[in-house]
């Protein structure tokens, strides 16, 4: 098959942020008349790649060629001028202005210095007709649905003689019929020879619309594939990666769990996670697997009371409770180590001791400070138990390595002696040594009777630790699989890719 000359060619792109190599040797080519999907988990470098392409950030290494000419854009405006338009996830238009104005504002057709309103409306209607849309162009944009607003944003983008159209998660807030309409528009544009770069977390959509895909992982290029030649399972495997060496299963023989600690029935939150039913027993480790954005963190936040549930109920040891706020959850001895330890959890300018003692102090209230001797004793105990280094309680948390910061966060919650510990990505971004230590700790805690909800993007890790694995996909809990000998990472991946439709190995659905 003859491949036409690419419109856009990025090769060997590298981008360094302070402390992070965001992109390293990434290639991307966009062919005319093709929808090209950019795949990868969050943090894989998709947004960074789009930002260096559109001139938000300068590149540190590599070259960008547009129609064979080397280019370097200093701003999104320059990129737009060269024919590279971007439509972002959030609709970036002014809802108070009319549809026609939103398409043309800043470059309105003028006659003798004054805006030519009739011509502007006529041209807007023409442009929208090209997208098979029939709107009242003089109506304010706010009268239309988000999907239509997204189309108007696209109309604005393609009016600038676009050769490359970048759609950064345009479908995340659209319903099925709106997505269908967007895809019709995309196909029309494709036929006109525009190259479309499409980013989405929804695998089904990728397979429906894209012709070719480029996969990134951890800022590196995994490869470029034809969508028709790559199965969903292979795609998920390539996105997640399987670099972790297989370690022994940490749990010995299967334990019997007969004392339910927390039961969630039909718990859900509109727009975040569809209603799910989940039981966590004492001493049980429940793993949650699924791609980023599949609703894993949303489950955790609901169970901790950080978000309000819109449906369903929770009971703890058989008593119905209402987890309205994290404080209520903490009173029921539920602890939550958040995914983002920098912004949600640790306070970098406080010392190790102050950070560890924080949650304990919060449960006592500010009128009853924890005595200093008790603080020192507790902190000393956990520093040695978790092997936090440096073992100096007065060290600033900011200066600790990622793994040690994670342990500080863990120590903070362990002091409270929780009955249910929710860990959201506790091992992300930390080195292998600290990782195995944290895994071993989780196993110890559950042997001691603590229930753990363990969220991780690494399937091997989930498998190694969990007694039961819940699989999430597209904000739905699609399967709950007991962790027996039949359950392997391949089965998990299969379940993630198929959405539990094929039943996985041990049957899907709620238990």
């Amino acid at each position, binding site marked *: 098959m003859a491949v036409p000359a690419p419109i856009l060619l990025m090769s060997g792109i590298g981008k360094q942020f302070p402390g992070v190599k965001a992109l390293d040797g990434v290639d991307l080519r966009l062919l005319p008349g093709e929808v090209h999907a950019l795949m990868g988990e969050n943090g894989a470098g998709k947004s960074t790649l789009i930002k260096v392409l559109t001139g938000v950030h300068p590149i540190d290494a590599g070259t960008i060629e547009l129609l064979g000419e080397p280019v370097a854009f200093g701003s999104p405006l320059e990129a737009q001028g060269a024919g590279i338009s971007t439509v972002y996830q959030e609709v*970036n238009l002014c809802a108070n202005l009319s549809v026609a104005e939103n398409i043309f504002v800043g470059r309105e057709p003028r006659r003798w210095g004054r*805006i030519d309103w009739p011509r502007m409306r006529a041209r807007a209607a023409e442009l929208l007709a090209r997208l098979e849309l029939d709107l009242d162009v003089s109506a304010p944009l706010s009268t239309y649905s988000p999907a239509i607003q997204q189309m108007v944003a696209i109309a604005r983008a393609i009016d600038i003689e676009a050769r490359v159209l970048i759609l950064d998660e345009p479908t995340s807030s659209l319903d099925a019929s709106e997505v269908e309409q967007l895809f019709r528009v995309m196909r029309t544009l494709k036929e006109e020879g525009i190259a479309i770069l499409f980013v989405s977390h929804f695998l089904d959509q990728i397979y429906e619309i894209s012709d070719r895909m480029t996969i990134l992982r951890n800022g590196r290029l995994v490869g470029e594939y034809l969508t028709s030649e790559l199965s969903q399972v292979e795609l998920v495997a390539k996105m997640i990666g399987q670099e972790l060496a297989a370690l022994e299963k940490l749990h010995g023989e299967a334990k019997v769990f007969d004392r339910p600690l927390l039961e969630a029935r039909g718990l859900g939150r509109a727009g975040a996670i569809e209603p799910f039913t989940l039981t966590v027993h004492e001493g049980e480790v429940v793993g949650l697997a699924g791609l980023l954005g599949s609703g894993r963190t949303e489950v955790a936040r609901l169970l901790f009371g950080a978000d309000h549930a819109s449906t369903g109920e929770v009971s703890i040891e058989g008593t119905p409770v209402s987890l309205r706020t994290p404080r209520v959850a903490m009173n029921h001895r539920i602890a939550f180590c958040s995914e983002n330890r920098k912004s949600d959890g640790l306070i970098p300018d406080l010392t190790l001791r102050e950070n560890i003692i924080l949650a304990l102090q919060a449960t006592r209230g500010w009128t009853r400070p924890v005595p200093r001797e008790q603080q020192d004793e507790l902190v000393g105990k956990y520093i040695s138990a978790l092997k936090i280094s440096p073992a100096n309680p007065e060290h600033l948390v900011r200066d600790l390595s990622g793994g040690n910061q994670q342990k500080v966060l863990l120590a903070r919650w362990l002091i409270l002696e929780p009955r249910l510990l929710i860990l959201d990505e506790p091992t992300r971004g930390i080195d292998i040594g600290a990782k195995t230590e944290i895994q071993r700790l989780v196993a110890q805690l559950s042997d001691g009777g603590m229930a753990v909800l363990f969220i991780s993007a690494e399937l091997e890790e989930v498998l190694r630790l969990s007694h039961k694995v819940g699989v999430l996909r597209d904000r739905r809990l699609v399967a709950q699989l007991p962790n027996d000998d039949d359950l392997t990472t391949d089965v998990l991946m299969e379940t993630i890719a198929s959405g539990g439709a094929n039943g996985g190995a041990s049957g899907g659905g709620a238990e």
Partner: protein
Amino acid sequence: MTTVTLNGLRTIPAKYVPVLVTAGLFVAMFVAGGIRYEGFASGQVILNVFIDNAFLLVVAVGMTFVILAGGIDLSVGSVVALSTMISASLMKGPGWPPYLVIPLVLLIGAALGLVMGYIIHAFDIQPFIVTLAGMFLARGLCYTIGTDSIPIEDPTFTAFAQTRIDLFAGLWISPSVIIAAVVVLVAAYVLHYTRLGRSVYATGGSEQSALLMGLPVARTKITVYTVSGFCSALGGVLLSFYMLSGYGLHAVGMELDAIAAVVIGGTLLTGGSGFLLGTVLGVLVLGLIQTVISFEGTLSSWWTKIFIGLLLFVFILLQRLFSARRT
């Protein structure tokens, strides 16, 4: 599209409703006044409202620009006072002629607005606090010129101020009304037929989006404060015509009258929605309240404030209703 049906006769776009409500209020007040007071229902009463409020109208036009762009300008009253003070002192002391003094005053006002706009943009500070600082600064500068009222006795200036322009049937207006009308027309043209005007609306609608759509947000923001400073200075000149004096205590609280007029005229305080015609109607409503109270005779003038207060409450609630219905 969102429309409101009036008695099932025809539908009107929702964006015109606040202006129409204000217009209806004005007509109702005028009719009620005409029935209640003898000699109220004459054209001259309305023209007098224009004559007595020409300076407020000009100041409110500047305020409309700022509020449409999502900002606020508290300095306008002080800049008006400063303009009267500079005009009066320069004509009285060194005896400068008006045709030199007036452009200078306009330049100073515009420059003050430019500086405030630049500070708001460059340091990303709340307009409220920056223009509050400008308010104190300009008011204070008045008293460095003089603490007493300075009469204006320049013959050209007073002759122009006292000119009566006769219309038909015995009606008349002052030159200030013509100046204010020109300002309103130019401003309406700018807002609706130039890119600057549409950038003002876009910036007020969503500054972040306007930036991503490639609009010159920085220039727009600085421009609206410059326009407001210029309008305040021009309002000060018109107030000098009206008062024939310069005084540091002129126009105390006028910034609030201007904001009230803009809001009663149907412009959203959050920016991005409203019309200049609404502001004109807002000023007329405020002026007509004063007229009604002076016709009533027995009511003291602070009843004006009570009515303005009540009206503001009603209009803010109306705005809330309309914006709630839209979302």
